[in-house]
């Protein structure tokens, strides 16, 4: 595609024309901290007109933080943002929009019940001289915008009736309607079909031709190498590499992404594997995953790695009986088990600690001890009546094991910090005395101290003979904790690694679908 002849060592020269270009947007020394976490540490980033810069990095590398800094949602603690050489600040999202920066998010932020034209122009609709919305002009302008990006969408239809890909196009048209020069695309192809992805690439080419500077965030190496002109790699909140895409290989990019200074210490384990507890054969779902099969032994920690949307959580939900598989079988202790609702799963000794604590884990309004006892009420009650003292005792036993920091167990769970809420949720499940525990992103969004406690505890559980399934998108955590790792990609098992094969490169390659795994 992009041929490079005489640009070696001169990053400021346009690859095709050879003319000198200066970055339209540049970030220098930008830092951003949150309580307990340094999300960005003196990063720099440059975007050039008419070029696509791919931003790559693992989950937690600071990609979404930089997007929020660029769109005025977060204010950097230090550093400078300049547009076309002039230093700027974005106190609000509107300021970023006015400066010509727009972002198209993974989850498009649009209004389902408004028309396409209304979605494109909401907030800056053309007005008649009486101050009313000029519908005709709006529809015509929308049509022109959609034509410009090659989208065959009727501006009058309701957004709800469009597919995801077309919704993306509307979001892009909206971005263009505010005359943005800098377009941020956050994993635009994550949930699209093959054909839709091709259309997105065409669109990116059009935007390039119009001279827009594009920041393209993606986990997919094939597309990065296909459409990007430049790359910037983030790791642990730092910029660790940047340059022309033609001057880097996949191998080098993966190395930059994962080659980390290991600042996290994981508990030392000497796994004592018992007999097989769980065997899953050919589990399939009409839309989310297909042909998932594995076996799990007592005392084992099995990691599930993959990109967001690879179907890991969806599979776990089916395993727990929340959704129904279309095919497949489960054997527990070599006995056929049928799981059609969470109660049956709990009955078979399988418990699931979901990813989203706030949404799926903690029940606010109930005190800590009642959160813990909720799935164990059959054991703590007698003749159908609850015994609060028993519940309290159960909660005390299990929260003590997890080193929960709370003023009192009858405190509302909502008053605890994220890490402590997570501990309550885990205590709740342990209290059911499970055989298999599924931990979905167990340390997402919690502080380092709580993370270490959760890891320590996972190791203890495995040592006690529990079979642990850990879904995680953090490579250090997966590598540091798992005895064996299954990598999922697009709803299927892409690879399984154990022992010496457990390397960051293997995981990233399998998850991203890079075929030549062994080079």
């Amino acid at each position, binding site marked *: 595609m992009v041929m490079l002849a005489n640009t070696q060592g001169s990053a400021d020269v346009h690859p095709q024309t050879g003319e000198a270009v200066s970055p339209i947007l540049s970030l220098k020394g930008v830092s951003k901290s949150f309580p307990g976490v340094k999300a960005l540490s003196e990063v720099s980033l440059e975007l050039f007109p008419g070029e696509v810069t791919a931003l790559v990095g693992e989950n937690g590398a600071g990609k979404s933080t930089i997007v929020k800094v660029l769109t005025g949602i977060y204010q950097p603690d230090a550093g400078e943002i300049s547009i076309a050489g002039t230093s700027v600040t974005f106190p609000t999202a509107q300021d970023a929009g006015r400066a010509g920066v727009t972002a198209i998010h993974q989850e498009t932020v649009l209004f389902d019940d408004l028309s396409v034209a209304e979605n494109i122009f909401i907030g800056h609709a053309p007005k008649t001289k009486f101050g009313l919305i000029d519908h005709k002009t709006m529809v015509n302008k929308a049509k022109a915008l959609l034509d410009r990006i090659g989208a065959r969408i009727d501006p009058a239809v309701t957004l709800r009736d469009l597919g995801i890909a077309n919704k993306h196009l509307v979001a892009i048209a909206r971005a263009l309607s505010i005359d943005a020069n800098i377009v941020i695309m956050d994993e635009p192809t994550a949930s699209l079909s093959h054909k839709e992805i091709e259309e997105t690439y065409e669109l990116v080419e059009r935007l390039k031709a119009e001279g827009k500077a594009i920041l393209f965030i993606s986990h997919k190496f094939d597309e990065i190498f296909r459409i990007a002109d430049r790359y910037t790699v983030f790791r642990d909140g730092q910029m660790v590499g940047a340059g022309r895409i033609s001057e880097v290989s996949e191998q080098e990019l993966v190395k930059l992404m994962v080659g980390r200074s290991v600042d996290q210490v994981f508990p030392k384990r000497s796994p004592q594997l018992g007999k097989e507890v769980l065997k899953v054969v050919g589990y399939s779902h009409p839309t989310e995953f297909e042909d998932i099969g594995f076996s799990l032994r007592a005392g084992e920690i099995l990691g599930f790695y993959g990109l967001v949307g690879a179907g890991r959580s969806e599979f776990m939900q089916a395993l727990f009986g929340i959704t129904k598989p279309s095919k497949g079988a489960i054997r527990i202790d070599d006995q056929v088990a049928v799981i059609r609702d969470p109660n049956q799963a709990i009955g078979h000794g399988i418990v699931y600690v979901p990813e989203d604590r706030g949404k799926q884990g903690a*029940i606010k309004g109930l005190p800590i001890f009642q959160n813990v006892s*909720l799935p164990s009420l059959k054991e703590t*009650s007698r003749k159908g009546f609850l015994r609060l003292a028993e519940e309290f005792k159960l909660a005390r036993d299990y929260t003590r094991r997890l080193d929960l920091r709370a003023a009192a167990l009858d405190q509302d769970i909502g008053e605890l910090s994220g890490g402590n809420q997570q501990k309550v949720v885990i205590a709740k499940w342990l209290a059911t005395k499970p055989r298999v525990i599924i931990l979905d992103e167990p340390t997402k969004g919690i*502080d380092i101290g709580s993370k270490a406690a959760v890891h320590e505890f996972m190791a203890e559980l495995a040592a006690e003979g529990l079979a642990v399934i850990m879904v995680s998108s953090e490579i250090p955590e997966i590598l540091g904790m798992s005895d064996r790792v299954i990598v999922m990609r697009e709803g299927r098992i892409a690879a399984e690694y154990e022992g010496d094969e457990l390397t960051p490169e293997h995981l990233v390659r399998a998850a991203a679908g890079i075929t030549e795994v062994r080079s």
Partner: protein
Amino acid sequence: MILSFLKSREAILAGAILVLVVAIASRFPAFVTPANLANVFNDTAPLIILALGQMVVILTRCIDLSVAANLALTGMVVAMLNTAMPGLPVPLILLLAVSLGALMGLLNGLLVWRLDIPPIVVTLGTMTIYRGIIFVISGGEWINAHEMSDAFKAFPREVVFGLPVLSWIAIVVVLGFVVLIGRTPLGRAFFAVGGNPHAAVYTGINVGQTQCAAYVISGALAGLTGYLWVARYAVAYVDIAGGFELEVVAACVIGGISIAGGVGSVGGALLGALFLGIVKNALPVINISPFWQLAISGSAIIIAVAFNATSSRTKGRVILKKAEHAA
């Protein structure tokens, strides 16, 4: 323990009721005679019973607008039965009323659970349907005192240990709810479903089923109240207890039961109902037009909700402070 009780919503509401009663008593001492207070309680008994039923529905993030229509239809059915078969014993009538009411509640619950229709739409629909059925079966006719048997009319008014049976039933229902809410897995499930339906699912609680159970309880109590109401006032017609569902919801809201679900208590619902009952009974005494009652209960609702909103907001600040402190 005592301090946290004093800071609770219930304590504040109880204080407000006390201030109200003292204020009335300072000008009209007759209002606070035990006999009159017993009267006020008896008068409020139907509201208390219905408010408790409504409470469990609201706890699960639903609402039951059909309670008053359910009450009226059950009342009409038992009144017609009594006219047709005056010999029917009261316990059997009670059983019939509760069952019929529960059946209507079950219909609400199944529509919400199985068809996933929004609760407000379901009960708005069944409310109209139930009222319509009363008209169809009665032909719009009234059933008057002289058509009802003496035993039928006497039951709620019979005085046992100094209080009418109606009052005693309300007391028994309150005690029953204390046990149901605080001491049974179903009671706990109501809070879990309302507090976080997603988490409830992961815990193995069937959200729809729990909501359906709440509707059945609310319906059964509406049916029970239907008989008591018709027998006490000795009349049944299409429009009895018209609009009463709003008073029931108001009692819950004033009592601190969160419309968003998951928060509430038996004491709150009881006090909310008592507050409205006292206002309603005191206004004629202090010579204020009963039409003011609407304005007063309306204001009480807004004050209660605003109060709950601000009190939970300060709590949020405390959490933030704590988080900052911890970090």
